[in-house]
């Protein structure tokens, strides 16, 4: 399993152990963030939304159980697996950790191969769900490459790998349009994009608010202009 681009939150107050873990985990491509207390761990959990957490049970004045209890109060606490690191093989405490949402344990001293096996196992089991953003789609912004293939006084054709729906407002950036002074126009699609070939779509885009001077610039061009 590829560990690159995965973030692991290490919560431990031992600087030496954290340095070692940074070495072990960072060397495997994981992005390591570290907290040295339960409360700081909770803050980093909210800030980074890590893929997995390594938690020490003994954290100075606080302890790992406090973190587990607080994590349990967050939405979807089961999404981010927690592996407990401990020097104590106390079954009663470990059972309590499981009841609070921990998924596994690793007994100190920690060896790199054992730790990586556990991390890979639990990263494989865990996945963040796809979130339905239907209500948010009006605010989405998407940038994609495209070819400006045809142009007339009222619209142009944009060939892209994305099929645009009818009436979608968009921004077009092209040196060609800038040279014609058309970059400050508003653009809106006319009809739904049509499939052309090889996964490309022709989208007709209308110019809104074009001036006579700008239209004149276009008329002066030859047809079938390619960017």
């Amino acid at each position: 399993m590829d560990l690159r681009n995965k973030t692991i939150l290490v919560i431990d107050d031992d600087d030496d152990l954290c340095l070692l873990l940074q070495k072990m985990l960072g060397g495997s491509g994981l992005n390591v963030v570290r907290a040295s207390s339960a409360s700081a761990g909770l803050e980093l959990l909210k800030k980074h939304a890590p893929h997995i957490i390594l938690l020490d049970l003994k954290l100075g004045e606080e302890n790992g159980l406090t973190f587990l209890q607080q994590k349990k109060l967050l939405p979807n606490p089961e999404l981010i697996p927690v592996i407990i690191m401990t020097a104590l093989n106390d079954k009663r405490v470990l059972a309590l950790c499981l009841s609070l949402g921990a998924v596994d344990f690793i007994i100190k001293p920690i060896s790199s191969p054992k730790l990586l096996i556990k991390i890979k196992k639990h990263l494989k089991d865990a996945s963040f769900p796809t979130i339905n953003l239907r209500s948010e789609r009006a605010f989405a912004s998407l940038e994609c490459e495209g070819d400006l293939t045809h142009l007339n006084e009222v619209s142009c054709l944009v060939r892209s790998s994305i099929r645009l729906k009818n009436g979608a407002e968009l921004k077009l950036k092209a040196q060609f349009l800038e040279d014609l002074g058309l970059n400050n126009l508003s653009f809106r699609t006319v009809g739904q994009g049509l499939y052309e070939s090889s996964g490309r779509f022709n989208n007709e885009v209308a110019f809104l608010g074009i001036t006579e001077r700008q239209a004149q610039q276009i008329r002066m061009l030859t047809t079938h202009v390619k960017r």
Partner: protein
Amino acid sequence: MAKILVQVDKDLADIMPTFLNNRTKDIEIITQALVKADMKSIEVVAHKLAGNAGGYGLAELGLIGKEMEAASKQQNVDEVKKLFQRMKDYLENLVINFV
């Protein structure tokens, strides 16, 4: 006392000096704690040693830490002193070979 030869993964060569330097600090902390009979401070230091030394390839030092943690919990000052001496001897005679 004879030298203690330990083979350690060469990947740890760059972080080992920091680790050993922090053990010198541990020795200072334990020395002062023993003067004040502050077993709680010794327990904290020993607990960390028990958890981290093995990861650095120094298993014996980790075991000393584990035993010292248990002895300090039990307020067994004599045992803590013995283990502390073992810890100092170990660190003094340690020779690491990075492989």
